[in-house]
């Protein structure tokens, strides 16, 4: 197949969920041998569009043309038969099985008299992996592979069913920089073979690196489309948000107070491999009112450092002091009481109680303030919840709404609000911008600046350089459990990336 042919086209696709219109007549085409990237904030309709293209959902109206012919897919299997595969954000591999088993899952090669022909499967798997220049044995357990390699196995599986169109939903969200490069190498290889790729990512810069066409969705409509040559980051963001955005600058005009946090020579061991220190002799001091950004790749030890300070992770050696008093022996609850609050990296897993309403999530860490006598006062709780909703600007019709009804950005604000409610002296935020859209990011950073102004020490981590160069007074780069560099707010992206071992 020659490149640049339109292989898949969506015409006037409309999708209604109940009374809401998730897609309002989207036109969209995918060309062979090219990468088309979908940009858009959360809730813009990207996922809905991808679900329709891959057969998970059916459009309310409009049509899908495959090679010029109208088609309808009633299931993903049907879409796969037409050569369309989707690689989900969440890996859909079985970690307890081998690479070979995963690739042939559900379509095992059978021997004439029954039984699976493992030898043949192994041979084909090896050929496939070699094709992708991947030195992985077919008999390796998937759980023994790194996340990046697992991602590539998923791609290999899609290719093994002769996919001509690959939809990749946030494929790099869990990858280290080097792995992203490998993935991009594979994508380029696929393009050369005429495969069409649809790419979705929150990592705008990364997406720009690989894409040929950009399509921007906003509020269920396509707002812009362009060739790579004609666009830049600012163009995408402008079209995504509809306005210029700014993640903010370090709050000024006040003096930092005394150090709230001082960490000395802190070492945390990897619970799965006690030989290895995930945090290796870190010193860190944060003053009241100061905002510190910790930049590092996945696995640099950022999460472990924050969790050790919050009391979640066991400390091997070193000292953690809050306001000059050691908190090493304190439980999580005692540390919250003293003013240490952690906003965890994984909102769904560690941040929210999914069975609770917005209000109950907000007040969970500071229940004592809702008590009257031995009972929780419904009235106090309600008024505190509403106060917090205002303080962290959660957009919700009521504090009684189930937390699942909020968008990612608003859920994140709830987790932050829960910590704010405890009147912290020190706020620790692990990747506070993860999985939320640009607009919400700016609001989260504005919230943090506001807290810092009120004398709270703020530490946040990020894996996007741009987010360090926003509100942080100080930038610390972590690499392999150690501090590899420290910068002021005037650092450049290159300096930071070089220090992290990325560039």
């Amino acid at each position, binding site marked *: 197949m020659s490149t640049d042919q339109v292989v898949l086209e969506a015409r006037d696709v409309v999708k209604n969920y109940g009374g809401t219109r998730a897609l309002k007549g989207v036109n969209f085409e995918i060309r062979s041998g090219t990468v088309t990237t979908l940009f858009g904030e959360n809730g813009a309709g990207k996922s809905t569009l991808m679900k329709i293209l891959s057969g998970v959902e059916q459009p309310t109206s409009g049509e899908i043309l495959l090679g010029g012919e109208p088609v309808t897919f009633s299931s993903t299997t049907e879409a796969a038969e037409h050569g369309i595969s989707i690689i989900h954000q969440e890996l859909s591999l079985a970690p307890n099985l081998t690479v070979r088993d995963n690739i042939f899952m559900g379509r095992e090669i059978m021997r004439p008299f029954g039984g699976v022909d493992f030898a043949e499967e192994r041979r084909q798997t090896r050929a496939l992996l070699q094709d992708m220049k991947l030195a992985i044995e077919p008999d390796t357990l998937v759980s023994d592979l*790194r*996340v990046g390699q697992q991602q590539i196995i998923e791609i290999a599986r899609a290719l093994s069913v002769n996919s001509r169109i690959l939809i990749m939903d946030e494929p790099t969200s869990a990858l280290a920089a080097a792995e992203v490069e490998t993935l991009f190498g594979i994508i380029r290889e696929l393009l050369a073979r005429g495969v069409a790729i649809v790419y979705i990512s929150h990592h705008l810069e990364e997406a720009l690196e690989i894409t040929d066409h950009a399509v921007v969705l906003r509020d269920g409509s396509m707002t812009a489309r362009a060739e790579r040559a004609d666009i830049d980051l600012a163009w995408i963001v402008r079209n995504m948000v509809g306005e210029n955005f700014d993640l903010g600058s370090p709050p000024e005009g006040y003096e930092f107070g005394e150090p709230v946090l001082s960490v000395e020579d802190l070492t945390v061991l990897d619970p*799965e491999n006690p030989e290895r220190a995930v945090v290796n002799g870190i010193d860190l001091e944060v003053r009241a009112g100061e905002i510190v950004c910790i930049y590092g790749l996945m696995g640099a030890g950022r999460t472990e450092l924050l969790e050790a300070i919050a009391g979640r992770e066991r400390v091997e050696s070193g000292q953690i002091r809050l306001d000059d008093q050691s908190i090493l022996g304190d439980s999580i609850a005692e540390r919250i009481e003293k003013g240490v609050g952690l906003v965890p990296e994984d909102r769904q897993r560690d941040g929210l*109680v*999914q069975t609770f309403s917005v209000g*109950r999530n907000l007040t969970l860490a500071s229940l004592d303030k809702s008590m009257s006598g031995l*009972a929780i006062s419904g009235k106090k709780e309600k008024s505190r919840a509403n106060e917090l909703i205002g303080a962290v600007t959660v957009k919700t019709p009521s504090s009684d709404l189930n937390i699942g009804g909020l968008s990612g950005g608003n859920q994140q604000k709830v987790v932050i609000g829960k910590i704010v409610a405890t009147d912290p002296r020190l706020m620790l935020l692990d990747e506070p911008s993860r999985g939320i859209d640009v607009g919400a990011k700016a609001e989260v950073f504005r919230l943090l600046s506001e807290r810092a102004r009120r004398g709270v020490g703020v530490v946040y981590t990020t894996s996007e350089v741009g987010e360090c160069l926003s509100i942080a007074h100080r930038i610390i780069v972590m690499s*392999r459990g150690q501090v590899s560099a420290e910068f002021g707010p005037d650092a450049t992206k290159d300096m930071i990336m070089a220090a992290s071992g990325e560039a």
Partner: protein
Amino acid sequence: MTTTTTAILENRKKFSIAKLLLEGRAFLALVLIIVVFSLISPNYLTWSNVLIMTSHVAIYALLGLGMLLVILNGGIDLSVGSTLAFSAVVAGFMLKGVPLDLFGVTIYPSVPVTVLIACGVGALAGLVNGILVAKFKIAPFVATLGMLYAVRGFALLMTGGLTINNLSGREELGNTGFAWLGFNRIFGIPIGVLVMIVVALVLGAVLGRAKFGRWLYAAGGNERAAELSGVPVNRVKIWVYVVSGLCAAIAGLVLASTLTSADPNAGNTYELTAIATVVIGGAALTGGRGNVRGTLLGAFVIGFLSDGLVLVGVSAYWQMVFIGAVIVVAVMLNTLQYGRRRRPATGKAKSDKNVKTPAVTGTSTGTGSTES
């Protein structure tokens, strides 16, 4: 954001009747049971029969309420049936006199002391369950399964497998009054039923208003998030098993006193009935959802249904089939109620998990950078 919330609000309006039916399903089932059986048998809805049935319900409800706490925590307690028998046997044993060979005397503890010790034994069994689950990280199913066997064994050992009969005590020994629990009435209501009401009110207040209740719901909804919010998740976990053991002991005392005998084989498979009452009452086995009102209704559904079937002469074997069907339908309806709402949240949670869970990444979070 706005799109999802409006969608939810619209759904709420549109399906309000369906939703009402769904949420009130245990109540509707109970009404249906009462209507059907009173049509078939005129004796069903007489005051005396209702009281008798409610006394049976009290046993299920006491076990169910303890179980509710455990299930809210995302656990399960299989040992309550055995604990019921054990505490009854302990009480019976003490009422018959505790021989102290060393001193050559036999002491006869008074009824209040007996009751307290029997309750303590139940709470102790629960405490062991709780410690096994919370501290030693043994799956609740397994820990309490072990306790199911062990405690039943103790009960049988204490009596050599025999039932202890005639627990009414003797005037001259000062240990009469045990039968009061089972036979007496206050304002015409059997004591067992009053005990159920008191336990329900206390637990209802604890779950609805106390900090412990909120902690329990939070830990059951998402233990990791609760822990990071300062909830003492282990303490909560131990306590729910203690309360469950205590409730089982109380049920055992009520039962033994009603029968004025303590049977070491009593309460066999009652743990399953208790789970059924909780599930019929709308609680989610995954934890975090359920309430006292629902569990009480569940106990009434099971009690009124099985007694009704007995009254109209349905064979005991068919009764099992009916109750089995009710349980399965209840769980199906639970899935209807929670399944749709939960999916988006858990779906996301799963995706995030896959990124970080060591089980998938194999070699911890550190691998990425060490390789790069």
